[in-house]
């Protein structure tokens, strides 16, 4: 036999040949080395026909070593002793494992020999069976575990319950015991009731749809997951179709009965279910032979965060925002409103720089640049953010660039903002100067009012361009480096100190460079007014429509 095995696969790789004909080298090594076990005649290779799967030996031990192809190829020419050695090692490992499982083996300090371990295993199994438990049943169905235990195991692992409802009225025909654990209703309470009593009102339509006879929904939409195409189902309408055992999944919210009087709703996951024609219908059904019902498994949705008071338990002084690469708000969490006073839509589309206090512009711009180039979360220092009412709140944020896993490009920046303190007074020049005295990063500068940079609307535009400039920088940088960098190297992995020196090829070179040096690492050492002047200067180059709203999206960069 071994000869035939080796001959069949000899020399050729198994790959090119149809699976059912070839005797793979793995198997060859397996079959060659399989010792004469209990039934020597049945030392087949894995690739023999599978009509009687149970007859096949569990001969995986030799194949499933996780060895790669090349090793297996060599096996064919491997000395018999090597194969034998491996087999022996495997057996020894198993024996060791077994002895660890047997209580009587454990106390032994020295390693026991194989035969003894086996004999003790026999004794142990006999003792297990002898104990009064369902394990001692003589006659097992092929499930290896006793039925009752298996049932509980399954229901526990799946965190679900089985239920059967009649399709016509949604009457609960059967529900498994585990429902009690999940929904806190006892079986008796549920059986015979209408399923709809326990479904969230908004989901009733969904559930009805699933239960309804196909007459109402003659055109079931199916998609073939292989091709992604929709398949028009030309299925005959009628009860007969239900026999197809069409599988379906749906999600619905079901009632959860708390001990207290108030009944809460709990998000509750899909039932995966099949339609089944049940011949033994209810006695009161006239047409019992066509009684159809839905057999379903209900499981708690693993990700449900129930009781949506808020979503995640974050502190109430925190809110999340998203910026586009240039710093424009693209997403604002509703909690921002209570903190900032603006509704999300008031902020959306505007640049964050318009709201940052001038003192903070330098360091925030620096962080902005950093975050676009780094995979890490970047913390800002505390900074002031202008609220709707004119006052400032002190925030501290954590930014990170969200990168598309596939393209490795930055999609947007996510900002988690924490409120440090509120400044209740209204803004004025005096306010600003007092703030600046209190601000943490800027102790020595006295704030001067810069023409053009004050709390007039005009100033907003200038501030906004900072973000745009930063974004442009990055894009230009990427463009320049795209030819040199390989696909796997993210542009962000290049050292940061290169960035400020990168000459900007796009127009406004001078101003850009100025801005670079301003916005770069050295900025914090400059005074506010210098920074402000730099911003104005750059804008004079780029912005031809001072004082008007400019669509900065028209500028250099595009997504």
């Amino acid at each position, binding site marked *: 036999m071994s000869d035939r095995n080796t001959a069949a696969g000899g020399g050729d790789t*198994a790959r090119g040949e149809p699976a059912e004909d070839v005797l*793979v080298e793995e198997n060859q090594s397996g079959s060659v080395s399989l010792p004469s076990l209990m039934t020597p005649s049945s030392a087949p290779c894995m690739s023999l026909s599978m009509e009687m799967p149970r007859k096949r030996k569990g001969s995986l*031990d030799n194949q499933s070593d996780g060895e790669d192809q090349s090793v297996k190829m060599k096996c064919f020419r491997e000395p018999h002793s090597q194969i034998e050695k491996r087999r022996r090692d495997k057996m020894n490992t198993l024996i060791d494992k077994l002895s660890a*499982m047997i209580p009587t083996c454990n106390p032994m300090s020295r390693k026991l020999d194989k035969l003894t371990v086996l004999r003790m295993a026999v004794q142990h199994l006999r003792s297990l069976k002898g104990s009064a438990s369902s394990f001692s049943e003589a006659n097992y169905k092929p499930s290896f575990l006793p039925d009752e235990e298996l049932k509980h*195991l*399954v229901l526990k692992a799946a965190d679900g319950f089985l239920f059967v409802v009649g399709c016509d009225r949604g009457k609960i025909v059967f529900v498994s015991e585990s429902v009690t654990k999940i929904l806190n209703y006892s079986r008796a309470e549920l059986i015979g009731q209408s399923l709809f009593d326990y479904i969230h009102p908004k989901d009733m339509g969904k559930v009805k749809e699933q239960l309804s006879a196909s007459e109402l929904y003659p055109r079931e939409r199916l998609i073939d997951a292989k091709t992604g195409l929709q398949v028009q189902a030309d299925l005959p309408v009628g009860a007969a179709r239900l026999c197809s055992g069409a599988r379906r999944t749906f999600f619905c919210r079901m009632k959860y009965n708390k001990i207290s009087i108030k009944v809460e709703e709990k998000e509750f996951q899909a039932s995966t279910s099949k339609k089944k024609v049940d011949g033994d219908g209810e006695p009161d059904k006239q047409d019992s032979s066509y009684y159809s019902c839905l057999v379903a498994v209900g499981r708690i949705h693993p990700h449900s965060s129930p009781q949506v008071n808020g979503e995640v338990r974050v502190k109430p002084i925190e809110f*999340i925002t998203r910026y586009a690469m240039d710093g424009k708000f693209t*997403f604002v969490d509703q909690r921002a409103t209570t903190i900032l006073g603006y509704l999300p839509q008031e902020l959306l589309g505007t640049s964050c720089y318009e709201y940052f206090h001038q003192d903070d512009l330098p360091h925030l711009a620096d962080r902005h640049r950093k975050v676009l180039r780094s995979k890490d979360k970047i913390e800002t220092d505390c900074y002031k953010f202008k609220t709707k009412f004119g006052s400032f709140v002190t925030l501290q944020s954590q930014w990170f660039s969200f990168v598309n896993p596939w393209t490795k490009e930055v999609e947007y920046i996510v900002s988690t903002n924490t409120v440090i303190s509120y400044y209740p007074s209204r803004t004025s020049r005096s306010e600003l100067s007092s703030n600046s005295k209190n601000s943490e990063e800027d102790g020595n500068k006295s704030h001067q009012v810069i023409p053009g940079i004050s709390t007039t609307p005009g100033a907003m535009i200038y501030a906004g361009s900072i973000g745009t400039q930063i974004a442009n920088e990055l894009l230009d940088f990427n463009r320049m480096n795209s030819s040199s960098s390989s696909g796997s190297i993210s542009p962000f992995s290049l050292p940061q100190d290169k960035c400020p020196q990168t000459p900007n090829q796009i127009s406004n070179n001078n101003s850009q460079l100025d801005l670079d040096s301003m916005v770069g690492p050295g900025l914090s050492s400059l005074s506010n007014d210098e920074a402000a002047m730099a911003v104005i200067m750059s804008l004079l180059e780029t912005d031809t429509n001072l004082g008007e709203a400019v669509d900065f999206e028209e500028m250099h960069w595009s997504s």
Partner: protein
Amino acid sequence: MTANKEKKRVISRDAARRRRRVESEVFVDLSRLLPLQQSVQDHLDKPSVIRLTISYIRMHALLKGKTGTKAEASHAVKCGQVMKSGEEWRECDRGRDDEGKKTDDVEPSEETNMFLRTLEGFLMVLSIEGDMIYLSDNVGIHMGLTQTELMGHNIFEFTHPCDHEEIRNNLRLTGEEVWCGAKRDFVVRIKSAPTHRGRSCNLKSATWKVLHCQGRAKVCVAPASVSCLMLTCQPLPLSHTLLSTHTFTSQHSMDMRFTYCDQRMTLLLGYSTEELLGRSIYDLCHTLDTNCLTKNHLNLCLKSQSVSGQYRMLVRGGGYVWVESHSAVIPSVRPSKSRPGAHQPLCILCVTYVLSGVEEPSMQLSLDQTVHRYVR
């Protein structure tokens, strides 16, 4: 002298034969004690007998120990789950209350079978080291290898090497988790030997099947240390998915930008197809769910299939809905003779289930929801 040597050789050979025979007898004894059909027992090789014995002992310890540990009882309470006291929970779990006896309509085995069949998956009990201690017998249908062939083996031998890290992370039990239900939900690629048409079942020709494993971890320190994961494993995806009014399909390029979505999307979320083309799904979703989507996306890139878990999709005009997506990577469709114009590069197909109604309809969170589309 040679006669002497010869004699010694014969003696030792006989001794060895006797030893082997004795050993084989013990193996037979052991196999008879296993809860399997005789026909199966007869055909087990020695390593399998040992593997299955180990499984048997472990499962015994696991199931007998389950009513004992305090940890479980208190964890049920901590999670805000059903029961107030540990005892009630145990009773319920055992199901030997009077109620169960009254409505004795379904046999336990029948119920289990129905359950697993409906789920279209199998049960796996995984030890902390990764040994598949137990597999329900329908595993053969899904994996192509029978229960007795697989049980006792280590899962790392059957899964894709790139997924090993994830499996290891899931096998780790933290102290915190013991008290909090320790749920598990992950996707792995596993070797599956096709068995259709009764053809050969050859591990060489095994393909990778994507398995969605869900369940919980269980700590059991007494009587024996049998901590493990109890999981239901469902191969993904089905070749046909039945759609309802609350689901829609969409197609995306590999970076998750929309390339197509069906009309139900418009009905459910308000965006027209044209509006969405070229837009990234990450723009459409609530920021707090970025992680969830990223994980989903990575799963798709690496494993070609994924189940996303819940996340929020923003509705046009304001508000959001909770959804869950089941996605798969569709292999490239090359133009063929019958469809010369059809060329479809690698793309992602998503079936998205809408779970909730529109929440906070007046709340506009993102730029996309405002009337004027954010032109990039």
